């Protein structure tokens, strides 16, 4: 049971308050980007390359321009005149907005058609004739590393290979030494495949440039409106579009999951065209464009190793990564972290030695490297460590739960210094796993498994006990293009005691309008119903880096608490003035200050706020407002213990998740209902890459599953009925002890599922399965170990 300090009416932390934002969504009154219509608005559609690697010989737009209603066809050469044909990526690489001579991946933007209507724009797109001279694309990242491989980025001066960067962390020598002397080592090559966030709303914008005012209003699907404003100013400042003349509005967002962090070429083209024509330009992607061209996630090839003693003590891990970044490094990572937070990959276990290295390469695939509901490459790391832990347990002959229990970092050992340099803030891993095991009935399941195996049936139990790292981040290490990754809150309380608060983050479904109000309600005792939350308009909200990487609660949530505390300090002064006592004589309970020992002598927060406007002490500033920019002292380290039970059909290889128990520890909980909802959603986005989703390309560079017909987003039928719970280990350095939760389940679920499937067929000699584990893939593996021969014989 979660204890609440505030009444239900105030609705502070711990209350499962129903969401304030629901009213408009359930009545069809949300305001998404495609709902925006401006007078004189034109529509843009984009011609895309059918080839993965080709020279553009000619673009003939004459037929398109003959269509009544087609206004213009904009090419890279047109943008080049204004130096707007390229843009910087978040990782300080460069990316074409529109190509001037070469296309580098299938579905890359080639030119844009502007028309009076979206149907006509589409006709115009079909009528543009582009002549290409195709080249053989480089699709395999290992081949891209070959010294003989053609150099893809010949636009980079002096570039002689396809290598982007090398990264490493940990003690190589010491790690090699442990491996050389260890009783037991296990090693596995694994691929964490390229996947796509596939938010149900695609990306799009309305760029509206007002020539008279020299002012741009940009309505766009972005998770980080403020950072985007700065990026636009950096790209377009030289044509006079400076930052004070840019207003970015992020309306309601139909799911983000990291896919709405990057700046896509379509946004920039729309801005450029609006700037040149003075008309508002709407651009809305189709689903196939979204899947085929927008940022991918994952695509890490990992060689993972673990060393330990024969009695099951983990001693060291060694990971080597090859990261396929596609045509440019457009990863959405903090600038100093080319592999994101991959170095969390030592997991929840107490051992002192690890070494990790990674190399990134260019290929002829779309650029990207976004989260897919994950804090910067944590999913890849967790998959590696949790698979290796199971393989190690198998090799030493220990139950995987037992082995984990024996290797966990102990509750009393926090803060814990990880071998890759993190300081884990808090955790109680033993309690989490114990609760998960008790809930699922672990011992009984193991007995059932023995029985079922004897009957020739396959059932598997898989565990994942992960540690996440979220809430980026402390400004000494974390920045994006130099901008420190703090976040902000501004609270204004009106004379009647009702408030509005604004944030630098932007909800895409996380429920900020409810949870931020609850944080402020907790601190000030103003009912959450009376606190209006606003985000997403750069003209009104304080600067912040946005919502991704489970950072909103750890950063902006903390900022809300800190700003509210500034106001409570002011409230105390006013209360002392009104009650004619000294501040030391006052005590706070949510909603009022009262005189110690005389509770009837009290002033409610509403009375105090009213006084701030009508009767404030001499020498004090009037009004009741505060702003806080919160720079976190550390990241937060949520954790989880997940257990998955699967049944596998021994003939068809169909895999059914029978049960899935998820115990999360995200520290103190603001709204249990919303946390649970986040966990449910994250789990379904965990089963997705584990069993269904992968972007597949052929050797010629064609995507083979670029629509929802073949890119298999799970429905309610594939998704099991999730069972969730929590342990609560507050973050000691965070003002409200919260850690962030939106992504934990996506990070933690895939290895639990794969471990379960491997466990179901482990007795046949199968040690590892690559995700997504489909029935087809499992069939091939079972066939390879001769299982079906035995069946037929």
């Amino acid at each position: 049971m979660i204890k609440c300090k505030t009444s239900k009416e105030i609705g502070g932390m711990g209350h499962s308050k129903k969401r304030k934002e629901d009213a408009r969504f359930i009545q069809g009154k949300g305001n998404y980007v495609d709902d925006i219509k401006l007078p004189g608005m034109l529509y843009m559609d984009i011609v895309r390359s059918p080839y993965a690697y080709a020279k553009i010989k000619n673009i003939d737009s004459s037929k398109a321009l003959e269509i009544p209603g087609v206004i213009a066809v904009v090419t890279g050469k047109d943008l080049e005149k204004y130096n707007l044909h390229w843009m910087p990526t978040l990782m300080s690489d460069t990316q074409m907005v529109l190509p001037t001579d070469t296309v580098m991946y299938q579905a890359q933007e080639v030119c844009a058609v502007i028309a009076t209507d979206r149907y006509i724009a589409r006709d115009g797109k079909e009528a543009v004739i582009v002549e290409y001279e195709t080249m053989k694309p480089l699709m395999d990242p290992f081949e891209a590393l070959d010294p003989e491989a053609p150099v893809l980025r010949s636009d980079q001066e002096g570039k002689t290979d396809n290598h982007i960067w090398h990264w490493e962390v940990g003690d190589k020598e010491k790690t090699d030494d442990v491996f050389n002397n260890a009783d037991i080592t296990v090693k596995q090559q694994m691929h964490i495949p390229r996947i796509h966030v596939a938010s149900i709303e695609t990306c799009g914008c309305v760029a509206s440039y007002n020539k008279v005012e020299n002012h741009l209003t940009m309505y766009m699907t972005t998770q980080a409106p403020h950072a985007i404003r700065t990026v636009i100013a950096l790209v377009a400042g030289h044509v006079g579009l400076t930052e004070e003349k840019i207003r970015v509005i992020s309306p309601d967002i139909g799911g983000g999951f990291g896919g709405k962090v990057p700046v896509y070429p379509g946004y920039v083209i729309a801005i450029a065209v609006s700037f040149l024509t003075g008309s508002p330009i709407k651009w809305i992607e189709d689903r196939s464009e979204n899947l085929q061209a927008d940022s991918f996630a994952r695509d890490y090839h990992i060689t993972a190793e673990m060393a330990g003693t024969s009695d099951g003590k983990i001693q060291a891990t060694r990971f080597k990564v090859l990261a396929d970044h596609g045509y440019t490094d457009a990863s959405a990572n903090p600038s100093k972290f080319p592999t994101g937070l991959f170095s969390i990959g030592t997991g929840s276990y107490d051992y002192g030695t690890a070494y990790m290295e990674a190399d990134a390469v260019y290929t002829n695939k779309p650029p990207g490297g976004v989260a897919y509901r994950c804090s910067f490459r944590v999913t890849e790391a967790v998959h590696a460590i949790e698979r290796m832990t199971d393989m190690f347990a198998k090799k030493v002959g220990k139950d995987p739960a037992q082995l984990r229990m024996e290797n966990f970092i102990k509750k009393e050992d926090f803060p814990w210094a990880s071998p890759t340099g993190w300081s884990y803030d808090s955790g109680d891993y033993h309690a989490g796993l114990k609760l998960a095991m008790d809930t699922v009935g672990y011992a009984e399941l193991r007995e059932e498994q023995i029985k079922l195996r004897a009957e020739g049936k396959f059932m598997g139990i898989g565990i994942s006990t992960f540690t996440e790292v979220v809430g980026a981040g402390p400004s000494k290490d974390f920045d994006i293009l130099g901008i420190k990754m703090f976040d902000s809150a501004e609270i204004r309380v009106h004379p009647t005691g009702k408030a509005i608060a604004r944030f630098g983050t932007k909800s895409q479904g996380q429920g900020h309008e409810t949870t931020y109000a609850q944080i402020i309600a907790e601190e000030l005792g103003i009912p959450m119903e009376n606190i209006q939350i606003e985000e997403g308009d750069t003209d009104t909200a304080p600067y912040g880096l946005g919502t991704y990487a489970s950072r909103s609660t750890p950063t902006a949530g903390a900022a809300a608490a800190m700003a509210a505390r500034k106001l409570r300090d002011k409230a105390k002064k006013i209360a002392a003035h009104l009650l004619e006592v000294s501040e030391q004589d006052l005590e706070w309970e949510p909603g009022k200050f009262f005189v110690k020992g005389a509770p009837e002598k009290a002033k409610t927060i509403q009375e105090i706020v009213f006084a701030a406007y009508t009767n404030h002490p001499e020498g004090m500033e009037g009004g009741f407002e505060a702003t806080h920019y919160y720079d976190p002292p550390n990241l937060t380290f949520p954790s989880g213990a997940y257990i998955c039970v699967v049944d596998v059909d021994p003939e068809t290889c169909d895999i059914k998740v029978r049960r899935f128990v998820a115990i999360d520890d995200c520290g103190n909980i603001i709204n249990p209902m919303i946390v649970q909802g986040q966990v449910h959603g994250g789990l379904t986005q965990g089963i997705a890459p584990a069993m269904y989703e992968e972007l597949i390309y052929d050797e010629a560079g064609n995507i083979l599953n670029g629509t929802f017909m073949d890119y298999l987003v799970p429905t309610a039928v594939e998704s099991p009925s999730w069972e969730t719970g929590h342990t609560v280990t507050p973050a000691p350095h965070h003002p409200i002890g919260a850690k962030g939760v939106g992504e934990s389940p996506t990070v933690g679920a895939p290895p639990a599922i794969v471990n379960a499937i491997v466990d179901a067929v482990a007795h046949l000699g199968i040690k590892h399965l690559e995700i997504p584990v489909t029935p087809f893939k499992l069939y091939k593996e079972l066939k390879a170990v001769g299982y079906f021969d035995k069946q037929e014989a």
Partner: protein
Amino acid sequence: MIAEDFKYDAPVSLADAFALLHQYGDDAKILAGGHSLIPMMKLRFAAPTHLIDINNIPGLSYIKEEDGFLKIGAMSREVDLEESEIITSKYQIFTDASKLIADPQVRNFGTIGGNLAHGDAANDHPAVMMALDAEVEISGQDGKRTVSINDFFHGFYTTAIQHGEILTEIRIPVASGNFGSAYHKAERKVGDYATAGVAAVVQIDDNGVCTKAGIGLTNVNATPMRAERSEAALVGSMLSETDIAKAAQYASEDCNPSTDLRGDIDYKRHLVGVITKRMLNRAIQRAK
């Protein structure tokens, strides 16, 4: 996604529809449920210049037993099959199949005639019809003709329907005696086209001898196919485990799948074998 422009007519009689088909020639297409055609037009894989919408023509949607046949009007929706008392009580093969076709919204509009006339080996009804030994009625300006389902599918997206004709009715010999039928497909996720699908029908006499067997296969051949060797192996047998295993093996051997994202040839043959066995067992169960 937006289709190329086209002309549209919604005739209210078959005679008008035929006249329009003749007037517009080869570039005209019939619009029934539209849930295969319209997505293809939106993706610009299809670009008919005329659409002739036959949804407003009365009398093409019914499910009834008459003259020894189960007669299904070609414009009957999948949902009509799901909700029909005759179907759910006697022809469970349709209930099995309908549940696995696309999703409920699509089944509200998708028609059984369209599912067949599309001529796609990935659709589910062709195999079901083959197992049931159906015949279809094709209507045109010169009258009606009847075509056995065995002669209906000519190739990739092509059928026995000539230009100017419309599929109007499907006829299935009425189920009698110990009749059982079943359908299942392996799919990557709900609503997907089949990785492999099997329709099985058996008729058993009072001595337990199989008097009639029908096996149709989905998406494991360029056109919908009947597993003839399997059927022959079953008719006259006592449907023992060995008989069923033999039928399953023949179906697996005789199908002609191709490798795609859903699986390779070996896997699909394997699935055909497994599902044939299971559907035969289910059909036998239902026959009893």
